[in-house]
């Protein structure tokens, strides 16, 4: 990569910021380094991307996991923002520290158009799109429009989720490899994102009665732990739990194929991915075995409630900081009724909001100050500990490391 003097100065300043921030204990300092670099050279995102083969991963849920799976599947050194800093500074920071020619970045849903424009990716993965942080995103429809505009003038190949009308409406015609799986969250399927008519929803599909929007035929189909690629079945044996991770794996395998990695090879590498930045991490609280899960919006809660061990005691921690979205009303879109009759410990900044929701769901709720308090107060058994974004991060740092 040839660097202009300005870019060289910007990168040096960014690296210095990373070191200083580590010394001064401002966390990992990754995105600080990216911010400094971008401030010194606003063109650095574009310049650092030049000459690399880049894949971008976006969507409401599964960005970090799919990014990790794809990076693992390529079987070579890959530049990636595995720390989850998915805004432009996080992407810049990853590239400052790593000259690898292959790069896989997760990117925030609203920032994807800018990042597409600047890094000119070879492929873009659109995982799904549902309500999350509406105080920031405002409307799902707004994100659909941003994606459509971002992809319109990009030559990137698109790998996208055929079951999600919001995703299908965002993809330019004839440009995608489609992935299909049983959808688990369909409450954001309302009016047609293309024409506004109500979608006709059947038991396992949807179609617009007014325009031609419908699920496209998929070449990658996930069902019951088997990924069928163009009619050929490939059993998955993932270390990560839940149907949602089988779908994430299908995306990674399809993207790896774009880089000529055979499915069997990609699958064996992806099967081994065991935890992604603390998600599904096993740890102990005192003597008690515990597992850490991330669930940050209604759609990801559908998966989390499916994964929760019926024999485990459940601890839930909810915050509403900027990164979580400051409005807690989404808790009422989660079917906590599935935990009715169980003892559940409520933690986090917004445990009062959570407690009221759980109580109305018929859950026996105990408000606790922290995880140790919860472990002391709940009946015996392993713990399934579920947090939303910053609550998860607090738990991971304190208990998993």
């Amino acid at each position: 990569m040839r660097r202009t003097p300005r870019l060289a100065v910007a990168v040096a300043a960014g690296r210095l910021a990373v070191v200083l921030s580590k010394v001064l204990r401002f966390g990992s300092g990754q995105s600080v380094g990216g911010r400094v670099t971008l401030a010194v050279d606003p063109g650095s995102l574009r310049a650092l991307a030049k000459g690399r083969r880049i894949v971008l991963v976006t969507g409401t849920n599964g960005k970090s996991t799919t990014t990790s799976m794809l990076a693992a599947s390529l079987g070579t050194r890959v530049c990636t923002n595995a720390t989850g800093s998915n805004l432009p500074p996080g992407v810049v920071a990853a590239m400052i520290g790593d000259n690898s020619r292959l790069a896989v970045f997760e990117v925030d849903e609203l920032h994807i158009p800018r990042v597409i424009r600047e890094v000119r990716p070879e492929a873009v993965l659109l995982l799904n799109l549902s309500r999350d942080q509406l105080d920031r995103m405002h409307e799902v429809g707004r994100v659909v429009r941003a994606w459509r505009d971002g992809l319109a003038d990009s030559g990137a190949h698109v790998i996208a989720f055929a079951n999600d009308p919001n995703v299908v409406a965002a993809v330019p015609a004839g440009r995608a490899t489609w992935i299909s799986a049983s959808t688990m969250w369909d409450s954001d399927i309302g009016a047609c994102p293309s024409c506004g008519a109500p979608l006709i929803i059947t038991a396992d599909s949807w179609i617009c009665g007014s325009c031609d929007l419908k699920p496209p035929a998929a070449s990658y189909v996930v069902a019951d732990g088997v990924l069928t690629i163009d009619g050929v079945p490939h059993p998955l044996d993932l270390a990560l739990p839940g149907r949602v991770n089988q779908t994430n794996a299908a995306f990674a395998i399809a993207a790896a194929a774009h880089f000529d990695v055979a499915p069997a090879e990609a699958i064996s590498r992806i099967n081994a991915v065991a935890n992604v930045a603390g998600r599904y991490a096993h740890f102990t609280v005192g003597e008690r075995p515990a597992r850490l899960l991330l669930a940050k919006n209604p759609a990801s809660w559908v998966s989390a409630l499916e994964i929760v061990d019926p024999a485990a005691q459940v601890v839930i921690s909810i915050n509403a900081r900027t990164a979580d979205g400051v409005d807690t009303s989404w808790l009422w879109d989660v079917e906590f009724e599935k935990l009715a009759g169980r003892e559940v410990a409520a933690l986090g900044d917004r445990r009062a909001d959570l407690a009221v929701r759980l109580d109305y769901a018929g859950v026996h709720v105990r408000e606790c100050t922290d995880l140790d308090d919860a472990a002391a107060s709940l009946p015996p058994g392993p713990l399934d500990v579920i947090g939303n974004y910053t609550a998860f991060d607090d738990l991971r740092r304190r208990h998993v490391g």
Partner: protein
Amino acid sequence: MSADSVVSVVVLYPRLLGTYGDSGNATVLCRRAEARGLGSRLLTVDAGEPIPRSADIYVLGGGEDVNQTAAARGIEKDGGLAEAVDNGAVVFAICAGFQILGSPGLGMIDVHTEAMPTRAVGDLVTTPDGAELTDDVLIGFENHRGRTVLGPGVRPLGRVQRGIGNGAGDGADGAVSGRIFGSYLHGPALALNPALADHLLTLAVGPLPAAPTPDDTLVGRLRADRLQRIGRGH
């Protein structure tokens, strides 16, 4: 009313009007009725399905612009909601659901909504306008771009202490017109404001039994927590 009464609550078009957990309002109404020994029936009606004419309470929630238009069209075509209101049903509508009850929309209440230049996003705290509401404040969260002007035929649900509410310069949030209640409070509103929930139940089925009553310890703590958090202090 007798102890074997059943309160029927309809959640109208949750796929189109349910962006901010608003269908929780129906859950709260049903659970609070049950806590008093009453029966409850919760019906979810999606676009295209017939709207029941004879339920006690209809709840509508927030939705995005295209969904809002589709919902208004569907409700108008069905005609069931207007008929239920004529029969004395209670309606509780939030955000987009509130807007479509006025104009442009169904014309069931005398309010008019147009787009605001900026979006109102944040905590919303109001003082209830009617003496029948026993909570000292109504608490919620708002996220909308509508500016709603009240006509002479309606009064506000609350006076804004904090936030934007209707945004029409008169300090009002929401509207009350007969048995129709509208507001920009989501959260959902009835989970955060149990006295308002009980008021709607009373309108629907008559005076509520004095015992047993719901245990509101947790919601009391939540209301105190929320007010302290948004700096009103107590």
